């Protein structure tokens, strides 16, 4: 029993926000999976939380800082930092082109 429907258009929009590409079959499957999950989640609406504060951090720590200094012992060399990059050029990461070149 689904209360929230996820149309292919809604699923495609979420995919776009999440930078994911979906096939048509995946779009349909995900729509029904989301409805199934939202139905389970919906149960918590039964609880009155109007007077309750949210908890984001269970141990109560706030604003943990360190001195703004370079830490050579836990820093990578340029070669180490680039070792896993699929593409690099003269010591830099190479990123896909996002702006079309004008002729």
């Amino acid at each position, binding site marked *: 029993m689904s209360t929230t429907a996820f149309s292919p258009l809604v699923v495609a929009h979420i995919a776009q926000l999440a930078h994911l590409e979906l096939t048509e079959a995946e779009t349909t499957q995900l729509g029904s999976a989301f409805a199934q*999950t939202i139905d389970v989640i919906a149960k918590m609406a039964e609880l009155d939380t109007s007077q309750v504060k949210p908890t984001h951090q269970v141990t109560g720590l706030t604003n943990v800082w360190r001195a703004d200094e370079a830490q050579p012992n836990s820093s990578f060399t340029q070669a180490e930092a680039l070792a896993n990059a699929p593409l690099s050029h003269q010591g830099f990461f190479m990123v896909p082109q996002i702006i079309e070149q004008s002729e």
Partner: protein
Amino acid sequence: MLRNLTLTQALAAIKTGEINTAEITGDVLSSIEAQNPTLNVFLHVNRDAALQSEKMTSQPLAGLPIAFKDNICTKGLPTTAASTLLEKFIPPYDATVSRRLKTAGATIIGKTNLDAWAHGSSTETSQFGTTLNPRNPQHLPGGSSGGSAAAVAGNMCIASMGTETAGSIRQPAAWCGVVGLKPTYGRVSRSGLVAMASSTDSPGPITKTVADAALMLNYLAGHDPLDGTSSTQDVPDYTASLGCEIKGMKIGVLYLEMSELAHLKRFYEPVLKILADLGAEVEFTQALDPHYAISVYTVIQRAEVSSNLGRYDGIRYGQDRTYFGAEAKRRVMLGTYTLSKGYADQYYHQAQKVRTLFLDDYDRLFQKYDVLISPTSPGFAKKIGASEGSAMFGELEDMLLEPSSITGLPGISVPCYRDPDTNLFLGLNIMAPMWREDRVLQVGDAFEQATLWNSWRQHD
């Protein structure tokens, strides 16, 4: 056989010179070689382990072979999180837990399978195939640390490392008939884990006995400047909790009276009797309905996943986002949805408020009880294929662990029953207030010593 030794036994035998570490590591490697092709426990085996372990004999962990879940960064050894997206990734650094155990003299014997990105409770979402349960290969090992639990159960390591976000150490430990310890959130550094849900991720050991878990935690626990959420609380010697009486301890029993768990009652009633015979005051008590924790966990986990998995752009490391499997896509997108404008109040903020209700509920319970216990999982290890077609498989399997996970509490699962026909196990989950791992270890050890369920326990 040497592979059957517990960590405590192995260290004692090495100390007296009876056995040398390389022999143990060699035997464990043969065990992996014989079983891994069918059970699919390891995604990567460290073939140099025998040589490495020999050099560390004089260190506290004596070079013994420890398996690591493959979402824990290990310098120079592949770390895939069981996703093809990270198939070619070789971490240029060690996670803090890897570094700490290596410094203490552990040899990383290999990297174990998990649900891809630790999303699941079966290992069936791994993009490198499902792990089979060594206790009964027609069944799942549980998850997400299924490979690490199976490695211990199958004597393919002396102990292993897992990570838990909501049940991922304790549930596979229960299904594989081994011990799984989930420390308090912040007790053990998260630095170098492939981040899943950062507000609940907790690395911890999976071992053959409670004593081994206590020993491992001694090397793992403590503040780490590389993890801002790690705690500066003092770390006791956890082995001091072993061999202690539990007489007079007040134990609250949760969930066993739920109608959904009626089938489990006959297995757990003898457990309560054993604890009572040890002198504990055992009584049933009521907690907030764990179904609400499923809602909270699902919202928080998906939200944090959508944020954490946003970093995989295929530019600095790893392949591009088309390599995400179905489960990761489903979770990232659901998190994106529940965090989006117009829905965040209804889902994300409401979940964080209900989390507070659970914290208040535990405060109330721990005023009355020293520890709380419950079944670890709603049943025995499920059959291969069980998770398919259910978007909420893991959440339902982990329902009894989610309340304590979202609130950061420490817990341990200890074997408490073995089915003679299927060779499958049930686990007893023991929970204590924040930072009281000593107490879960004390009760776990007392129970283990008083029973026959642990297959490595020495019976004299």
